[in-house]
């Protein structure tokens, strides 16, 4: 099995506090994986480690079919200044960065692709609206349109459906399915177990340490969820308090 990326004894954290501890495993090329776990389990930290924003304290992320500069990443809380006077069209168009960079103009073909991405997320008619006038769901749609244009082999989504209306969630899950159908590798941090069972074939359950990783039906069991909660509660203190080697 070819892998998109592999975790090798990966330890990530802030200061000297590990948030992800000695993780091993492979994410298959073209797979659609949900990352689940209790609060503070290191799910977001894991994605930051993959993008390279966070350097590992130990171990490494090894890239197989993907490369680090070919990642489309949707952070949990974006730094985007929603009051900034920029239109939906302009926000989405920077998804073409790998082609237009900071200095080149958009050609007709680019404009057509921007239009296509905006219509794929159901925002046609909103192109010239300032981003400040969008609702939370509409704004998330715009960010998905930008991810579409980034045309990356690896898509990382950090809680993309939190505080989003059900209709938007269904539409955006459609976009995720489209990526999966195109053979891209998608890793999404999710809270909604129902959505994970319905749409994500693979699941990685995390509670600082790996709980389970594999087909969703085998991973997302009551026993595993209980164990994950226990592991997280035991690990509120420093690592040596929960009886494992630091």
């Amino acid at each position, binding site marked *: 099995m070819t892998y998109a990326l592999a975790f090798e004894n990966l330890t990530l954290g802030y200061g000297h506090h590990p948030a992800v501890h000695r993780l091993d495993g492979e994410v298959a090329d073209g797979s659609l994986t949900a990352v689940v776990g209790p609060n503070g389990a290191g799910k977001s930290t894991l994605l930051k480690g993959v993008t390279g924003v966070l350097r590992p304290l130990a171990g490494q992320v090894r890239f197989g079919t993907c490369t680090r500069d070919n990642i489309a990443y949707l952070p949990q809380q974006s730094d*985007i200044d929603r009051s900034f006077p920029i239109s939906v069209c302009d926000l989405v168009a920077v998804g073409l960065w790998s082609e237009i960079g900071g200095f080149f103009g958009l050609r007709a073909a680019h404009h057509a692709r921007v239009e296509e991405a905006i219509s794929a997320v159901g925002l046609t008619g909103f192109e010239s609206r300032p981003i400040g006038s969008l609702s939370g769901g509409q704004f998330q749609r715009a960010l998905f349109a930008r991810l579409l244009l980034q045309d990356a082999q690896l898509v990382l989504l950090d809680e993309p459906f939190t505080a989003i209306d059900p209709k938007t969630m269904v539409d955006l899950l459609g976009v995720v399915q489209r990526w999966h159908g195109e053979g891209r590798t998608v890793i999404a941090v999710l809270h909604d177990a129902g959505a994970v069972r319905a749409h994500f074939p693979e699941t990685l359950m995390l509670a600082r340490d790996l709980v389970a990783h594999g087909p969703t039906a085998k991973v997302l069991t009551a026993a595993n969820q209980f164990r994950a909660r226990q592991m997280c509660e035991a690990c509120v203190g420093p690592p040596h308090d929960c009886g494992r080697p630091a």
Partner: protein
Amino acid sequence: MWELLFQPFAEFGFMRRALMGCIAISVGGTPVGVFLLLRRMSLAGDAMAHAILPGAAVGFLIAGFSLGAMTIGGLVAGMAVALLSGFVARVTALREDASLAAFYLISLAIGVLIVSTRGSNVDLMHVLFGTVLALDNAALILLCSIASITLIAVALIFRLLVLECADPQFLRAVSGLSAVTHFTFLALVVMNLVGGFHALGTLMAVGIMILPAAAARFWATSIGGLIVAAVIIAIASSVCGLLASYYFGLPSGPAVILVAGVVYGISLTVGPLGSLVASVVRHRINA
């Protein structure tokens, strides 16, 4: 009426030079001011203006009232404070606003110390309030060069700058130019403040950058619209301010800034977008 508007500029060379200098600062400084405003760095601009003082003072001590020495001194001091505070913010736990405040206060204290121990009060007044009515050719060329460089630089890094303001996380993810953009922008701020202080003084220079930008916020929504509106407001304020200073014998730098302040006040009250009147009208329509 028209005579009142044009006669001072037609008759006196120093008024034409002053107008030329103010237009140059308006064209170069206000786009920078618009981005300062959009990045919520309006007060950082003020801090940078203070930071320039010791450099200009050292230049003055070494070479007297020399354009070159004071310009270079101001640029060096401004860039040093910008780079040091940026460096401290990236390497230590201190945030950029706090480290900038620390460095500019130190810099300002040094500046006041130098000027008050070695120069006379008249010199201090020159540095603080500028000499827009005594701009010579060299000073005008400097102001126009700074305006030209600023416009070219802003055009060149426009997309990077917009993204650095709107979504810095994304820019850092797709491009390594985030830090370059930030420091290029800071360099433009320092350059325009140094240019501005020759005409309007260190403390007033930041006024012509920020006030028109803040007023433009009530007239335009897009970035391009904001810049155009701000430049128009800045030029109009310059003309009116210079005329007011001519007819009423007022110091010209503060007069220009005060007119810009009046325009800001009017925009705040009756501007079409988000002003006091606009929100009352909308409230009435909705009610």
